[in-house]
């Protein structure tokens, strides 16, 4: 019962945060809503017994990534979202289409997948097991992430630095 209540509470947090993200016009407000979503999600992870995931969700996502977001928003001094005419395609085709698609997937999830109820902490992921997986079975992906990060760093450096002006102008 408590499990259900907790699930509902966190779920409510998620959905409310997500909807608020869409509703807010200032990016800072949206960012904060996203933090709420992430926090609530961490709670859901805990309920599912994924403590490790929950931890890095808070550390990496809420902690690192969102900070980056807020930092950029502040840096660029982003103001309230403009109400530009926008795109009819997105509104008239994309949104309804996506809603139908999502509805289909959700319906599929509810109807067609053999999904039993799970108890809280159904699959505890002790750090040792996770570590074993990460550094043995998933060693290669783990190493490969370093390249990913390297690329990201390079990219950030290249793109965020002001363009060189010393080269001959054409």
């Amino acid at each position, binding site marked *: 019962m408590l499990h259900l209540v907790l699930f509902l509470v966190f779920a409510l947090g998620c959905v409310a945060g997500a909807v608020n993200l869409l509703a807010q016009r200032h990016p800072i407000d949206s960012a904060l809503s996203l933090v709420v979503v992430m926090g609530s999600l961490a709670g859901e992870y805990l309920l599912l017994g994924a403590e490790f995931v929950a931890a890095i969700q808070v550390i990496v996502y809420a902690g690192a990534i969102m900070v980056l977001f807020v930092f950029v928003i502040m840096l660029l001094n982003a103001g309230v979202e403009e109400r530009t005419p*926008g*795109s*009819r*395609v*997105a*509104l*008239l*085709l*994309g*949104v309804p*289409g*996506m809603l*139908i*698609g999502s509805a*289909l*997937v959700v319906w*599929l999830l509810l109807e*067609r997948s053999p999904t039993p109820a799970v108890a809280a902490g159904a699959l505890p992921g002790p750090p040792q097991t996770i570590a074993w997986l990460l550094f043995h079975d998933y060693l290669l992906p783990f190493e490969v992430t370093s390249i990913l990060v390297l690329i990201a760093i390079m990219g950030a450096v290249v793109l965020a630095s002001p363009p060189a002006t010393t080269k001959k102008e054409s």
Partner: protein
Amino acid sequence: MSPNFHLWLIPLLPLLGAAINGLFGWRFSRQLVSAVALTFSGAAFALGLWVATQFPSLGTGLYRESSAVWIRAGDFQADFGFYLDQLSLIMLLIVAGVGFLIHIYSVGYMWEEGGFYRFFSYLNLFLFFMLTLILASNYLLMFVGWEGVGLASYLLIGFWFTRDQAASAGKKAFIVNRVGDFGFLIGLFLLIKHFGSLDFETLFASIRLHSPETQGAGLLTSIALLLMLGACGKSAQIPLYVWLPDAMEGPTPVSALIHAATMVTAGVYMIARSHVIYDRAPAAGMMVAILGTLTAFFAATMGMTQTDIKKVLAYSTISQLGYMFLACGVAAYTAGIFHLMTHAFFKGLLFLAAGAVMHATGGEQDMRNMGGLRTKIPWTFWSMTAATVAICGIPPFAGFFSKDEILWQAYASARGSWLYWLFGVITAGMTAFYMFRLWFLTFFGEYRGGRAEAHLPAQPGGRGSGHAGGDDPHRVPSPSHGQGGIHESPKVMLVPMVILAVLSVVGGWVSYHHTFENFLSPVFREGGTDSLVETRPTSTGVESPVEEGGKETLFMTISVGAAAIGIFLAWLLYLRRPAWPDRIAHRMWGLYQTVLHKYYVDELYAALFVKPLINGSTNLLWRGIDQNVIDAGADQSADLTRRLSDSLRHMQSGNLRSYAGWVALGAAAVIGYMVWIGIP
């Protein structure tokens, strides 16, 4: 064993001459060119004479040689094969002989002209094709000659190509002939389809198995009619006669050789050669006879109003060819060929003489500007007289025998009818009229050269304007060719004329005692028996019943009488009362105009065929279908694609969210599809 005649050499010799003159003639002197041309044509004639002397030694009266296979495809084969029987022998002698004479004449006539070598090359080429036509052993080779003489005719009519009329006339001749050839070709296709061969012997042997198609139009009738169409084109019969008057644009020797003596008779020869078919197709025969009669009659009427000396002769030729057709139509092939021969003599001569007259008057062709030439050019006058009398059918000149034979057969033959005869006699009267009109106008009275030309109400088309324009390349250099300039032709021209004059006088005598008929009879006899169609023997025949003989004598008298009436009228109107013709013309203005304009047939053809074809092709087919339908259709579809493409561009609005919208929509579609097939 039969002797080897090397028939292939006969056509080939003129071809060699043509090639030598054609390729190298421009470097030769005129003497050399004429030497080459005369040598090769003369050699052909000599060879022909030699063959003729050897011919009686052939017991069968039949000789054939096959030099090589020409075309062979599937089960069809056509050879370069030559065939000699009495019919082709006669034709060979006529063509080679008259041809050679006219070659000689031309040397004198064309001496002053540019393109001398070209002329003789063409002339030799013509001989080659004509001899091929005559000696061919199958229809296809005959067709080679058939088309070839058309080509030669085209080239020679258009010899003075800078003159627009000449150019158009040449083209017209070729195209009209092609219409006839179209029929000929279809006839050949029918023969190939049903008999598998075009070789005369094989073909006729299998056709002989057929019985006459007395009712309706069967295969043989169709073939016969189609061949007739071809013959109509070549021999200038209704409805394809229109080219021949125009063909007078060519040099006069050409008119004599091609458009009087030889080429135009090819149709008659072809029908005679195909007698096996015509004998079995009475309906087609009747058609030939009717066409021949009508042509003879109408051409004669047109001849009466012409003022151009050559045009008169041209219509006269058409008319005489009509007689020959009539003869062939009533299955009196012998008579037809006989007339063909005599006609070759006197009509060839008439043209040569006309040429001599023109030569004398410095290129004048309008009879209204002549007159009184009798004393100036006596040799020409007397030759002309012989020929004129001959064509009018006055005994004992050549034309009398042959024309009378035809008229008699037209009435008396199994296929004959009194109507044919009646028209024939009237035509004979008209022939006499217009020929003597020509004779009187040219040689009698005062010389009218240089006088105003307006004494006749209208100018017939053709020569008048060209003459007025002064661009006649035939004109002798001296600008003032008054009476003082009129001179007799050189000997080289006169000799052939005299020879032909003699022949015009005596040529008819060969029919004495059926010599000619008997000579030809093996050709037209059907496998040992006489022709299927019975023709009556002539009056001179001993075996003819008395009653028949009396009738024939009567008929003969009538036709001679008709000729006499014609001559009298001509004398009356053109010598005695020169003002009457105008008055008559004004009195019967409409009729006169109609006849003068050749019944408006040229105009009719122009309105019926030429204009609609050109306008239709331009506006309906080319601009209409090609440009406005097909091309426009292609352009339209290209345009449509481009517009579609352009509207697709607008999908690419540049707006990121729109892009995402498309992606989301696509994703939804994919999900929808997969879920749909995923749920059984």
